[in-house]
């Protein structure tokens, strides 16, 4: 079982990102689950979304999770939420920030000693898609860190999932995914 927790603000596309990732993984024969905690969420409110991936049918519906990966797609949440909650010794963190990994570890000592990768998904999204929607770049970074799929296969799959959007937006998302893949450290 692979488990992922997303930290996001409502409106940044974590739910869409989690569902998109689940969709891609499902086409490779694995079983998936994607869900989120909403409450009566307002745009901008901190929220979490989740992915489960397994070779067997996923029957566990508990919300409690000890994630293998934590994605933080809003730079401030690493300071205002506990992104390390329910962590495991080998939990990997991919965090959106304009800081370098070293600067981030200094700024947030809770991350000290943990496997942390950084990538500026907000800037990437702004410069490619033209809006600060950091969900698809985060998935590009995840492909790099996890080595889950070949990036070209992943981009092809995402083109299908984004299929209803205008071609310009789809192309911009592909650039964003590739840039995050290349830039995550």
């Amino acid at each position: 079982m692979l488990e992922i927790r997303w930290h996001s603000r409502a409106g940044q596309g974590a739910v869409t990102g989690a569902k998109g990732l689940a969709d891609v993984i499902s086409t490779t024969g694995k079983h998936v689950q994607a869900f989120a905690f909403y409450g009566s969420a307002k745009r901008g409110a901190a929220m979490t979304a989740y992915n489960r991936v397994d070779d067997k049918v996923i029957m566990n519906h508990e919300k409690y999770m000890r994630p293998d990966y934590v994605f933080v797609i809003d730079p401030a949440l690493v300071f205002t939420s506990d992104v390390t909650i329910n962590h495991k010794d080998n939990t990997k963190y991919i965090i959106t920030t304009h800081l370098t990994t070293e600067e981030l570890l200094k700024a947030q000592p809770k991350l000290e000693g943990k496997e942390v990768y950084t990538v500026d998904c907000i800037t990437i999204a702004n410069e490619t898609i033209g809006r600060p929607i950091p969900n698809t770049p985060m998935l590009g970074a995840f492909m790099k860190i996890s080595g889950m799929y070949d990036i070209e296969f992943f981009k092809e799959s995402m083109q299908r999932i984004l299929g209803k959007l205008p071609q310009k937006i789809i192309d911009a998302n592909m650039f964003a995914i590739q840039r995050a893949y290349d830039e995550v450290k």
Partner: protein
Amino acid sequence: MAFDKMELRDIEVWDGNFAAAQAMRQCQIDVVAAYPITPSTPIVEGYAQFLADGYVEGEFVMVESEHAAMSGCIGAAAAGGRVATATSSQGFALMVETLYQASGMRLPIVLNVVNRALAAPLNVNGDHSDMYLGRDSGWIQLDAYCPQDAYDLNFIAFKVSEDHEVRLPCMVHQDGFMTSHTAQGVHTLDDDTAYGFVGDYKPMNDMLDFEHPVTHGVQTEEDWHFEHKARQHNDLMTKVMPKIQAAFDGFEKLSGRKYNIVEKYDMDDADVCVVCMGTSVETAREVATEMRKEGIKAGVVGIRVIRPFPFFQIAEALKDVKAIATLDRSSPNGAPGMLFNEIAGSLYNTPNRALLSGYVYGLGGRDLTKAHLVSLFKELQVNVDAGKVTTQLQQFIGVRGPKLAYL
């Protein structure tokens, strides 16, 4: 046909809401009258989108409340159309008056109920309070445990509800957020196969058949009211279960997916078991399997058909077990709990007087964790070893503060 077909992949990653909306599209519903409420809104939104995009030939009626939504459905069903809608929680509560009208008028309407807590305090998350509120309303109630079930049970619902020997409305329940907003792989049917299973809608006593005028929604005082209600109850008690079983059998032939009126998991040799509904059934199955590695023979019984209540099937499923926990996800507010009472009733006149204890859990979406279920199975094993219920009969799982236990 005047509408487009949709190409679906064999497995789509859908949440429970979208799965239900797709099933409604494939059933080609004539009229949906709906009012939005979290978390069920995406079902009727999805249907409206399919309609606007030309995938359905039907009518979407926007109304001013859930009371009006069900009233619109009643009118459309009486007129002779295939009708469905969706709601949750406060919206369901507002519908209650019209729910009794729908069933009393013997109108086959399908209502997707995305289970959510009832205020006060206001809460949008999943529990079974609204589902429990509907259980004396004369509707058939089916329960989904995951998005796949939410898809499949919609077809079952139309098939059973519209049968001329049944003609009773049917609710398809799914857990708010835990199913409705959780995307999982859903095995699909192609449009023709799905529609072929439910078939063309055949109206009965429809108001728009001017050759055979009929009256709907009449008044009957003490001269006839009781006979109508008794007949409705009789049909629920005698006619519905065989039709549900036949629909399950037909659906299994079509899809390979087998549903049962009462779902039994690892029950053949179980010493201890939980009886529950919704997503909890699946989580409990996973934990039961893990408990067996620790030497506790655990099983799970899931209620698939809530109304009519599967009295004999429950007794059969529980005939050899030694300790049973009933899990109610609705505050009984001064009683032992619906499942506790119903299971006790089912077993009282049987030789097996298993140790029965009730648990209230998960109100307002509070998480039911695997750890909770591990403790629960262990507690049941302690009861078996002691030969008696070692706790009070009613306990709460997962609530903060001092431990609550009663009876």
